[in-house]
């Protein structure tokens, strides 16, 4: 059973275009370690939005190249999925001092997808790559309370990429 690598919007934005050294470094890392980044569906939708103010993100290119894939919908029939979702929403709500209902479900979906894969035995551990510290910290705070403390790692998207580029990878 291998680890699951869940990636948020910010990681792909930080990588830039295929001609960018950051993009190439992450692609090399993925290929060397036989990693496929999994995008929650909502993340894929964010990345492929038709917004004239922003440059297109080459997300489909990486999917075609085989090192990214879009996750199946969350299985809310699993109670752990709803609990992880609620827990992270509450975590972010308290960090930002606003009602939990106002918190975007996509922020919590990263942790919910992680919980689902560990709980159902489809992954031994999960890495969550995000540039939203609140979402990453939320996952690392909530999942231990469900008994998955050592299984989840919040990887800071910028520090990860900067490490790859600085190391000449």
């Amino acid at each position, binding site marked *: 059973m291998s*680890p699951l690598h869940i990636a948020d*919007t*910010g990681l792909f*934005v*930080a990588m830039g275009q295929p001609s960018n050294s950051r993009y190439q470094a992450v692609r*090399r*890392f993925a*290929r*060397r*370690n036989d990693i496929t980044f999994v995008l929650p569906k909502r993340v894929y939708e*964010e*990345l492929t*939005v038709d*917004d004239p*103010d*922003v*440059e297109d*993100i080459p997300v489909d290119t990486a999917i075609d190249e085989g090192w990214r894939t879009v996750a199946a919908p969350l299985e809310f029939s699993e109670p752990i999925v709803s609990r992880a979702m609620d827990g992270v929403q509450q975590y*972010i709500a308290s*960090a*930002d001092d*606003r009602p939990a209902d*106002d*918190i*975007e479900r*996509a*922020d919590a979906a990263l942790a919910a997808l992680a919980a689902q894969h560990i709980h159902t035995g489809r992954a031994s*551990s999960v*890495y969550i790559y*995000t*540039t*939203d*510290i*609140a*979402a*990453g*910290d939320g996952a690392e705070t909530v999942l231990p309370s469900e008994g998955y403390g050592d299984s989840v*790692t*919040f*990887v*800071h998207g*910028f*520090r*990860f990429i*900067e*490490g*790859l580029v600085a*190391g*000449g*990878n």
Partner: protein
Amino acid sequence: MSRTSNRADGDLVRDFLSVAGLLEEPRLAQLYTYFAREGEATVQNVMDNLDLAQGTAYSYVNRLVDAGVVEVTRESQPQRYTTCEIDLTVTTVAGDREYTITPALIDAVGRRETNADIDTYIDRHGVAGLATALTYAVGRERGEVTHRLMADDLDISPLAAEMILQALRPVVDEHYDIDESGAGLDEMDIDDISADDA
């Protein structure tokens, strides 16, 4: 823009014009940021570090001095210059928003010439909008808010929010103390094969 500040009336108009000028001319904003970063510098330093011709460098420095945002700290040659503190709150033309002009905001505006995302954002949302985005960028790095909450609040796409937050991250790094969060590459428990072996 109109201004709301509580300093002596005689300074009001001059402050407003000078700071507004800084925000409208990225090169002046860059120069102000350079002095703020260095603490003290000469015109020669400016020429060397910002790659400006002598005439241009003197002209820009004099404009900042005339505007009252930079002052001479040593009269003997070569003169040295430093920034004056700016603390100015402005209200947008529509009167619906207020924001404070800070060295971080001036730094951000100065980057529009070299950062297409900042440039586009100012075109769409004005300097007032950029000031708001900078507030979110600080909150995001402190783990208080996410790009999706910013997008919801400001009615922009999450992708547009993420883009400007990333563009402003170096400004946040430079002007605010942020604790490190999450794991970097070194802290990941992945037995990465080195590039040499790949």
